[in-house]
Structure formats: C-alpha cells, structure tokens
C-alpha cells in the first residue's frame, strides 16, 4: 500500500492524533503475547518435578492459573483496543469521505448511481475496518506471537527449533496457495452476489413488465442462475477452507511425532534436542500454539486482500478531481442598477462530454424583475441553462453572469438567497415536513417555513398531518401535486431573488394544476423568473420567450 494514498494519510492522522491509545494498544498486545508464553513453562516445571517424584506445591498451581488468567484479561483488553482503534479509523475515513462530497463536481453524481457511491461509504469502509481490526493489527500481533514462540522453542531445544524453522516456510507456502485460491473463488462469488442482490430491486421495479410479458419463470430462472453461480464459487472456497486447517494440524502432529522419535533415539541426538519429559510436554503445547497464529495470519492476509479492492475504491473516491472553487468573498449578489442586465449569457458554449455540443454561442440577458420562458425541443439544453445559472456546471466558453459575477464563482452558502429552484419533481429528503421546506438550513426560521407553506396553500394540509410540521417525510400521504407545491415552498422559503421553474413531470389533475399555477403566480411576485416551456401555458403566456437551440 502506498504511503501517499489519501486513505493512508487519513489513517496516519488518526494514529498521530491518538498517540496515547496507539501506545496502550501496543503495550497490551505485547503483554498478552508474553503472558501466553509462560504457562507451558510452568507446566514443564510441574512435570519435571513429577518425574523426579517430588511434591508439587499449591503455589505453582496458582501461578499457572494466575498466568492463564492474566493472558485472558490481556486478550480481552486487546480485543477492546482493536475494536476502538478500528472504529476510530472507520469514523475518520467516513468523515473524510463525507467532506469530499461537497467538493465533487455535479456530474460525478449524475455519472455514478447513488447506490454505488453509498456502497463505498458503507461496504468499502467496513472492509477497511475489518482490514485493520482483523487484518493488519492482528497480523502484527500474530507474527510477534509466532516469533516469540519460536524463540522459546529454540531456547528449549535447538533441534526442534531447527525443524520448525525449516517447516514454517513450507507451511506458509501452503497457506498462501490456499489463500490465493480461496480469494479467487471469493471474488467470483462476490460478483455473483452483487448480481443476486441487484436482481431483487430490479424485479420490484420491473414487475409490471414481468407480469405483462409473463416472464415470472424466466426471472426466477435468472435468479436461480445467479445464485448457482455464487453457489459454485462458495462451494469451491469452502472445499479449500475445509481441508486447509486439517492439513496444518496434521503437519503439527507430524512434527511432534518426529521430535519424539528423534528424542527417543537417545545419545547425541537427544543431546541436540536437549529434552526432558517436562520439556516435551511444554513443547507439545508450544507446537500447538505456533501453528495457531500461522493459521490466523493466513486468514488475516485474506482479510487484507479482500479489503484491497475496497481500499482502492476509497482512494479513487478521495482522489476524484474536485470542482472549481467558488469565491467566498462574493456576497450579496443583489441587483445593482448600474450593471447592464441582471442575468447575462455571453456567447456560452457548453457540452457535458466535450463531444456533443449542447449549447453553442448562446446569448441572452434578463433584466431584474423580468419573467421569461425558455422554449426549444427536448434535449435542446433548457435544463442545462438552469444548471449553468446555478453554477452546477461551468461554461466551456463564454460567461454566465449574475449581476456581473460569474455564476460558478458564487459560493453555495449564497445560493439559497439568490435562487429558488423548482425541480422537475420533488426530491424528498430524510427529515420532517418542515425540513423538506427548510432543507435543514439554520437560517430559515419556522415562521419562514410556515409562510412558504401558506403561500403555496399547503399550510392547512400540513397542520392536518398527525404531527403537523414535524411529521416525518415517509409518513406524508401527499399527492404528486401536493409534493410539487412543497417543492415550490422549498424554493421560496429563503426569499430568493431569482425563481427557476423546471418542467413539471408529474401527472396532475386539473384541480391540482390550478392550485400549482396559483402558487407559482404568487411565488413569482417581485422576482426575476425563468421558466422552462411549461404545459401550464396559462402561467407562462405573458412571459418573454427565449429560444434555445434551433
């Protein structure tokens, strides 16, 4: 992993900011490893006493238990520290990622599905968390454990130490081989699983097509096929997983058997192995212990590997190019009568992908207080004009000026006082109905929210809801038309100077349509209004027309 990746710098920052905790974690881990080394040594003493037909004192038994208890306590402590550390990392990464969101260009959100971005926040960060807790930290602990046990074994018996040192690379090679295969099938499983998971919401949204074309069986078959794909991959990785650990245990038995045979040879060989009966007991305990962390290291490598993709995706996300910086010194973009026009498009060229030109040499201007309507066929770029005005995109050529200031330089904080944007359809946010209107802006008082609701004629309806303005969004039983009204309330809550009306896509009955029109008329009072050619012809009939495209 490269040190310079943004993810690693986040992690370094966390380690750096919590030095005390990092230090404590290391101490506890080391302590817990050292504590596990001692009980077999006590056992050795006990056996040696017994073979010499000597009394075993109670205090030796108590020391043994004491050490076991201590290592248990330290293990608990280790778990706590690792969890805390992992959560700190998770928190830090998510925070950093969230902070990145506001700097991403608008088209990032149109290019990437929200579900996919969310999955980076949720699944990929979880993977990184498990990479730290069940991966890097525990691997460090386990490696240290293996080494310290090897040292003790070597100290106790050079011969056995030699055997184990010879065998360890071999076992590690086997472990790696298994891991690689398991990982491969896990990756194909994950791909299949994502298909399995995607198939369910897709079925729900396509249920009408499935029923009218009578493809229930087909969709079921597809689902079964995806499951089958995942099944085959899992089955394979299960097979490796099932035989790996038995192989390791068998090898450790082989080592014990070989050691015992060699020791039994007596003479010089026994000298080399330097073993008493008590040592044999201790060493059997150690041999069991030396492969345990080796197996865990295997798992940990796997955890790290499976998180690699997540790490890569998080890094990619944090390295996404950022949008143009706005100029926070620009405040109060209000109408100053000395400028030529309030809103001006000067020879604007624009394309989303640098290939298909959407706007070319567009020029128009709007005076303060004027009401205009943009007309043009679908795809001519009417909505694009709005996006440029809102500073969501920057023109390729030419300038978009609001009171002489480039639209894309106006900071987000200023926008709400400047623009009220009625979107094509209402986008509910997670929050109460009052928050649907205020969009959580602390600058908008409840009074302003209520005034906005009154203006669009929703005040009474909202008061009739079970919890009035505090009713959560998911409990609002509004019609599409009422949501559209809510969208107008949202647009005007902060008393903006400019009102932008996009095409309304909802199917509305004539009654609601009238209501919306009246609300729009009231909302337009005293504002500069730009609307996109509307099916509400009666609303736009006295607007100035601006043709977009041919």
């Amino acid at each position, binding site marked *: 992993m490269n040190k310079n990746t943004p993810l690693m710098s986040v992690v370094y920052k966390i380690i750096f900011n919590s030095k005390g905790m990092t230090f404590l974690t290391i101490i506890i881990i080391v302590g817990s490893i050292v504590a596990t080394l001692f009980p077999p040594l006590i056992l050795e003493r006990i056996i040696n006493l017994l073979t010499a037909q000597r009394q075993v004192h109670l205090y030796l038994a108590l020391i*043994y238990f004491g050490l076991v208890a201590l290592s*248990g306590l330290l293990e608990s402590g280790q778990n706590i520290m690792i969890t805390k550390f992992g959560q700190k990392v998770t928190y830090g990464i998510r925070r950093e990622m969230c902070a990145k969101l506001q700097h991403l260009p608008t088209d990032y959100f149109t290019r990437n599905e929200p579900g996919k971005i*969310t999955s980076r926040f949720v699944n990929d960060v979880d993977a990184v968390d498990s990479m730290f807790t069940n991966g890097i930290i525990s691997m460090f602990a386990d490696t240290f454990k293996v080494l310290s046990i090897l040292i003790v074994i070597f100290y106790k018996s050079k011969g056995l130490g030699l055997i184990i040192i010879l065998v360890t690379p071999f076992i590690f090679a086997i472990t790696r081989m298994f891991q690689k295969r398991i990982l491969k099938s896990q990756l194909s499983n994950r791909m299949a699983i994502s298909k399995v998971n995607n198939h369910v919401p897709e079925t729900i949204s396509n249920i009408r097509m499935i029923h009218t074309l009578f493809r229930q069986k087909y969709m079921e078959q597809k689902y079964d096929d995806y499951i089958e794909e995942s099944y085959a991959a899992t089955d394979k990785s299960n097979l490796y997983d099932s035989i790996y650990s038995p192989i390791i245990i068998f090898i450790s038995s082989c080592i014990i058997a070989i050691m015992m045979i060699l020791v039994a040879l007596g003479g010089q060989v026994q000298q080399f192995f330097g073993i008493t009966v008590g040592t044999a007991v201790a060493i059997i305990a150690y041999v069991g212990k030396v492969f345990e962390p080796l197996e865990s290291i295997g798992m940990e490598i796997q955890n790290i590997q499976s998180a690699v993709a997540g790490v890569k995706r998080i890094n990619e996300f944090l390295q996404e190019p950022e949008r143009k910086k706005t100029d926070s010194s620009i405040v109060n973009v209000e109408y100053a009568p000395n400028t030529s026009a309030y809103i001006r498009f000067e020879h604007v060229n624009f394309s989303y992908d640098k290939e298909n030109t959407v706007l070319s040499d567009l020029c128009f201007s709007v005076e303060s207080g004027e009401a205009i309507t943009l007309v043009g*066929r679908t795809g001519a770029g009417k909505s694009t004009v709005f996006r440029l005005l809102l500073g969501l995109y920057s023109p390729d050529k030419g300038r978009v000026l609001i009171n002489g200031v480039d639209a894309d330089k106006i900071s987000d904080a200023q926008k709400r006082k400047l623009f009220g944007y009625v979107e094509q359809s209402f986008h509910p946010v997670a929050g109460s109905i009052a928050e649907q209107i205020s969009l959580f802006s602390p600058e908008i008082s409840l009074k302003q929210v209520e005034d906005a609701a009154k203006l669009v004629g929703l005040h009474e309806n909202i008061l009739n809801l079970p919890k009035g303005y505090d009713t959560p969004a998911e409990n609002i039983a509004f019609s599409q038309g009422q949501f559209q009204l809510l969208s107008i309330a949202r647009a005007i809550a902060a008393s903006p100077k400019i009102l932008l009306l996009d095409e309304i896509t909802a199917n509305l009955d004539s009654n609601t349509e009238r209501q919306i029109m009246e609300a729009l008329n009231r909302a337009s009072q005293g504002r500069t209004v730009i609307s996109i050619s509307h099916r509400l012809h009666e609303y736009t009939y006295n607007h100035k027309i601006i043709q977009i495209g041919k």
Partner: protein
Amino acid sequence: MNQYRKIKPVPKPNHILSYFKLELWPLTLITISGIIYNVGMLAGPYFEGQLVQRLFDIIRGYKDFYSMVRLAVTYLAVILIVQLMRSIKRFYVRRFANNTSRHMRHMLYNSLVNMSRDELEQEGLGTIMTKAIADVDACVEGMRKFTTEVFDTGVVLAAYISLLFFYDWRLAIISCIFTPAAYLIAEQLKTRITHYNAEYKKSAGRLNSATMDRISNSITYRIYGSELNRDKAYESHLKDYEKRAVSANIWENTMQPLYNIISMSGSVLIIYFGAKNVLGTGWTNWNIAEFTTFFSAFTKMALKSSKASKLFNSVQKAQVSWSRIKPLMREYVVPDTNTSIDFSMPPKLTVSNLSLYLPGNPPILKNISFSACRGQIIGVTGPIACGKSTLGRAFIGEVPYDGSIQISEHELSELSGYERSRLISYMGHAPELISDSIRENIQLGEQGDIVRYLQAVCFDEEVAQMPQGADTLVGSSGTRLSGGQQARAALARTFYNARQILILDDPFSAVDKTTEKEIFKSLRILAQDKIVILISHRLYLFPTLDKVLFLDKGTGVFSTHKELMQENYIYAKLYNSQMAGEQNE
C-alpha cells in the same frame, strides 16, 4: 454448473425443519463425520500423554526405541483419520448452509415475482421482501453454526467430560464445577449483549439511510447551499455509530477470554490433586501420561466451553432473522397456464360502458365505449390527467372496472394472468430494463431474430456501433443507455413480444420527431394482424390513425380524427395549438 442438484420448491417453506429435511444426505454425512471427529478429538490429548510417558519409560530404560516409532506412527494415523473426518464435516456443513440459503432465496423470490405491482408498491411489500432476502444470510449462518456446534461443542464436550470422569471422577467433578458458572454468566449477559447489538444495528441503519440521503440528494442540497450542514448532521450519525459499535463489540468479543478464565480455575485443582495422583497419594494412581492427557483434555474443554456462548448468540440471531422471514414464506407458486382460449384467432376488441375507478375513489372515467378490429390503430388522447394512462392500465388488470372489456368474446376481468399476457402487450412510461445485454432485454429468454425489431425502432445502427453490438450490457435498470436508447430498447422488446392487442402509453416521448415517424411506419406494418391502442399527448400522428378516442372531463368520444376536428371544439383546439407550436420549433 450442472454438477449441483437443481433447486427444488420447498414443501412447507414456513417450517424451519423443512430445510433440514431437504438436506438429509449432507446432514447424515455431517453426523457420522462429526461424531467420529469429535470423539477422535480425544486422541490428541491421549496420544500426547502416551508419547510423553513413552519418552519417560525409554529414558528410564523400560521401553525400547521402536516402541516409540510404533506409537508415533499410530498417533499420526489416528490424527490423519480424525482430521479427514473434520474436513468432511466442515465441507458438508458449509454445503448444507449453502443449499439452505439457495432454497430460502428461491422460495422468497418465487413469492416476490408473483406478487402484484400493487402489493409491492402500495403495500410496501417490496421493501419488506428485500429485507427478508437480506435476512436469509444471517439466518443460514445461524443454522450453520448451530449444526457445527451441535458436534463441535455438544459431542466434543461430552467426550471430554467422559474422558475426565474415566480418569478420575472426583477430580473431574470438582474441576468442572467452574464451567457451568461461565455458562450462567453468559446466559445472564445474553439479554444485555442482544440489547447492545440491537442498538448498534439500529444505529447502523440510521447511518446507512443518512448516507443514502446525503448522497442521493447531493445535487438538491448543493442547489440549496445545504451541503455543509448536512455534513455536520452526518457526523453526528457517525459519532453515534462509533459509540454503539464499540460497546456492542466489547460486549460480544471481550467476554469469551473471561469465560475461559472462569473455566480454567479448575486447573489449579488438577495440578494440585493430579500431582498427588501421580505421586501415589491422591484418589487414584496416575502415570505421567494420564496426568498430561487429563490436563490437556481439560484445557481444551475449557476453551471450547468458553466459546459455547457464541453458539447461543448466533442461534439467537438466526431466530430473529427467521422470525422475519417466516411469515413471508409461502407455498411455491406456479402460475396457472391452463387455458381453453385459442390465441391464434384474429383479435377483436369491444369496450362498452366502461367505468374506471381506484378503490374508494370516485370514477376516473365513465361510460367509455369503443371497439376495434384487426389491423386498426386507435389513438387515445386528451388533456393532462384525463385518465388516458389509467385506461391503458385497465387492460393489464391494474385498475378495477365496471362495464365490459371484451377481447374476442372473452371478458377481460375473467382472464387469468397468463391468458391476459397472451392476448395483450403493454408498454408504459418506464422502460423497465434488466441488467443484461440489449439482446437479452428484448428476447427475455426466447430465441428469435431481434434485428428486424431493432430496425423497427430505429435502434439498429446505434447498436451496431456499440463495441459489443446487441450483446452490450445495459447496466442496472438500463443506466448505461441514454434515455432515448432505453425507450427504444423497451419498444423493441414490446414489438418482439407483441400479442394480438398492443397498448402503447406514450411510447415516443423520449425520441425526436423524425425517429417517431420512422417507428410509426414500422408500427403500421407490425399492426397488420393486431390491434394497437396508442396513448399519446402528441397529436400530429393522429390524422393517420384509424380511430381516435378523445377523453375529457371523465368521459370519452370515439370517432375519427377528421370528425373530431369538425365536431369537438376542445380536440380541435388542442390539435391546432400543438400544430402551431410545431411551426414555431
């Protein structure tokens, strides 16, 4: 892939035992290998004790070198068999879980795909089903752990305890007395662990929806300058999540070493009294082998029993998941495809005195009558919200009606879903594409030529230019295609699958006028042996249609374009204003 058994419907899918019954063969293998393996687990401590004793005897000169070789080889052979059994058990337990997950998903999906749109959307069953399907993993994981632990904890503990009792029953009793205490504490803490876990899950849920909200509404928040304060709100969710994750994890993971300590208290007694046994002053007489075996078996047992509480946790989690899945488990549905209708008869449509209403609401349309016969294209239009889409949806059984819709002498409401789908094809506003290739989206599992349908919707050239042609993947819900491409792919699918009556609700809204005219030409050819109901708010094709149904103010006039232009002032106004708009563009 065919090496695996086919997925079969599960009888009594709402009984957890049904899933165990389906897996009798793997379960038998698990039982046999599980018992052999776990009883064989004693072999480790036993042989280790024997090896040490043999070493002691050799050093003392009681036994010779070859007896050690023989013992070591026997030891290895036994361990090999035991470990072999272990791998068999491990593998089949996992396969059992895998199969069960497959069956549960299969059953849940079957009820999902056979639910009506109303059930899925209005009644919110869609979300519930999605959650239930996600629950399958947790449930199966619990079943797997349960099956594993029945042997790895249950059998092995019994084996260890009998070994201990066989060696010295008095010492076994007093040293094992601490283990139940560990269980007792684990049992006491269970509710607390569940509580912290539930809080953690809830917080995770809140965080996830906050993430989704922050991201999917990013542009809205940006337009309204709310990004910064949303980030702050997100951070408070993050803090809450961190806190709860830590406490849930601490309760779940740190207790096990403590249980182990409690169980290991017995070791003091074993060392003290066991040593007496070896020295000949205890309850029984032991050699070194017996001491070592007893001690090693005890240590392993203590470790095992400290993990047993994890078993309780996973079983409990599984129960919670299962309780959510269970009520949704319905008998396997095989849609009824029996029919006495001859679908090859030329189509005929007679609608008389039709009223449409949504339950509990006043009728949307009243007294609609019209008819059509083979080869005709009927235009349906009217002002916004006149009910034209509702009329279209009535043909696919989504809107209840009074009056009559007769299709070649059959009343629509009496047709089964299958019969309806064989008589009527429908295309609504949403393209409803699946994440597969363009080809697959059109054929949907059938094998037929798609080129002429791609040509019919003016999509052939664009498809040919794509790197993989018709095998280009369209992405989830078709997102890799543009809006116009999605609409044409959906139209090609509708044409490919067209039955006798074709209902098209605003099929051309996402294509430009030239394309629309081209596609309309193809529709004319396709419609030669069919009836097409073309619902549209764009009227410039209407002069060429055979008949027009004009809906306004809750009722309809069925006539021709020509006559409507003369007799219906509102229709004429609508048409003229659109044609005037044409000239402007």
